[in-house]
């Protein structure tokens, strides 16, 4: 049964830009880099404590969660590498917006209670990039799953690689990026990388989609 399906499933298309594992690796890595950088960006507003960390983790996870849901719906409706490119480019733009928003919010001693201020500041800056990046993994899974009999394996491997990306992002940010670079440059670098990759996928996507989906 599975043999028949495998015969029927299309041959994998090779294009140097279409790398499902590298794609999820990068998106997960970028989420963790942004998450660790986020704590450094909001600590001046509210301090660095358990509550700050909980808010950072909570907002980023919420973004990923909603992103996963939206990404899954989008993926079944219109699975394409071009869509993936658009998502990456949007994530890059959202990350590049973090610093302007920070500059706008920075001086305010608003009337809000501090707890809501933490959640508000954090959400204003980091909800959007997390949400957009959260769309990536279900879309890549949809593009990579070729038949049901192997679905567990494919999805499992994609999760695994995504988590390796998260580990790499965590360790490299904690031990290397934060001690080496200013935190605003880290965010700009992540935004730029995502934007460029997204544009490349968007441009190359037409050719790749023709091969992947036929």
């Amino acid at each position, binding site marked *: 049964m599975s043999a028949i399906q495998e015969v029927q499933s299309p041959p994998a298309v090779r294009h140097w830009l279409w790398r499902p594992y590298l794609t999820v690796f990068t998106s997960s890595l970028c989420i963790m880099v942004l998450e660790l950088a986020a704590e450094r960006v909001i600590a001046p507003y509210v301090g660095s404590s358990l509550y700050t960390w909980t808010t950072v983790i909570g907002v980023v996870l919420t973004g990923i969660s909603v992103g996963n849901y939206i990404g899954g719906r989008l993926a079944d409706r219109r699975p394409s590498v071009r869509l993936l490119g658009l998502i990456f480019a949007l994530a890059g733009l959202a990350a590049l917006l973090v610093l302007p928003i920070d500059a706008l919010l920075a001086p305010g001693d608003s009337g809000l209670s501090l707890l809501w201020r933490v959640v508000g500041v954090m959400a204003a800056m980091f909800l959007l990039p997390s949400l957009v990046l*959260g769309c990536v993994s279900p879309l890549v899974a949809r593009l990579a799953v070729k038949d049901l009999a192997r679905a567990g394996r494919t999805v499992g491997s994609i999760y695994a690689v995504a988590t390796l990306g998260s580990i790499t992002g965590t360790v490299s940010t904690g031990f290397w990026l934060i001690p080496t670079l200013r935190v605003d440059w880290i965010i700009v670098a992540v935004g730029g990388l995502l934007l460029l990759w997204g544009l490349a996928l968007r441009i190359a996507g037409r050719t790749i989609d023709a091969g992947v989906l036929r």
Partner: protein
Amino acid sequence: MSATSGSWQQRWYWRPGIIAVLASGSIMVLELVVGRIAASYVGWSLYTWTAIISIVMLGISLGSWLGGRLADRWSSPRLLGVLLVVGGLLSWSVLLVDMVNAVAQVEKLTQQNLSYVAGLAALGIALAFLPCLALGCVSPVVVRLTMRNVDQAGSTVGRIHALETVGSIVATFATGFWLISAFGTRPVVWGVGCVLLLLGVIILGHGRWWAIVACLALLVADTTIAVQRNWFRGPCTLETDYYCIKVTDETREGHPVKVLILDRLVHSYSSLDDPTRLVYSYERQYAGATAYQNERHNPLRALFIGGGGYTFPRFMEAAYPDSELDVIEIDPGVTEIAHQLLGLERDTRIATYNEDARMFLGRTPNRAYDLVFGDAFNDFSVPYHLTTHEFNQQVHAWMAPDGLYVINMIDGPSGELFRSYVHTLRQTWRHVYAVMDVDAWRRATRSTIVVIASDQALDVAALGEHAPELAASLLAPDVLEGILAEDRAILLTDRYAPVDQLLLPVFLDILPE
């Protein structure tokens, strides 16, 4: 059109969403609890966090890969049941580190044998790998069992992944804000294991009531025994979101004192009958600075960043009855313990603000302090946001023109943090002094240094008169310049403050010996 792969999909217990939520939530609960356990041995630091996050994610990663392969081979709910039972049993293993410590009875060794303590922390973190591996397998299995055809792959993966993330969020908030402080680490881990075990048994037993009742009975019996044997209490006097707080009795210089231990660090010694008895030498330097400042300001206004055992606030309350004393202590548990066990009166004149110092000092100043004492830096865990130029500016705004900002910090002979910290203070205050014994500092892996910042130069003659001990160990300006010129000094800012890395020599010197 969907495969009729058995009637189990119509059974009441087949709730893939709930299974996904519970499995991923359990991982987050374990992650935070293991963080608390590791921190009680080596303190909070970037290294503690990075190690835990990495190990947990590694478990999830390998689990996802393994779970995917298992799911394609045996796509049946029985596999899921086995995984949940195994995950439940393995989650209890993270408590083994406490057992090892209890069996070896090395509580007393925490100060002397640091490699042993570091080993325990590493063991605790490593043990988290096993349950995360088993629970990481769950997700692809649930996806595989739920997915009917390839066209739904995206939405199936997306929906289950989203549910898992919801589970993680709820678990993160619940553990961080409520579970640990309400129950303590041991009952929380026990509860996680029980939930997973019960869920696994329900699936394996096809939802038969007698299997559920038997499992429940067993768990209730075990819980009762554990409660009766007082096993859930653990070693802490009070477990909060921030610390495992322990209070012990000791005799110092012939007098009984209460010792406050936050995680593994002996934070302060308090004498119940005589608050003016100061054990730590840095506190005697603080007393010197207070005596000096008392000559020009009466009554004194003092702010403490970090309450700890309230030793010094109580000293000032007793020695300077007119003084106005404000304490910023992030952990309400520490304040409560000080009230209950460390002699802080309920009707004290000391006003406590239980919040982060950045929150308190970020408001518009409405007082001018003559003295600000920094006591929030521990050895491995220095809150970086209290070292930066921006924070110093906030402190400065709350100080009288000739106020003193007195901070104690720990650094090793390489002095990397010390140089950067002094360099940063100098951007805000015109005069920065260091109080230390240079020879002892050169020889020890770690020393306590008192730093004083002020806009007005210290009057050395008056200092010698009112605070001889402080005057004796105040570094001459040229000696301080010499130390500062030894190597690079970083300007610490909110955007760039690699404090954990600057402390790496202290961290490394301690652990291997």
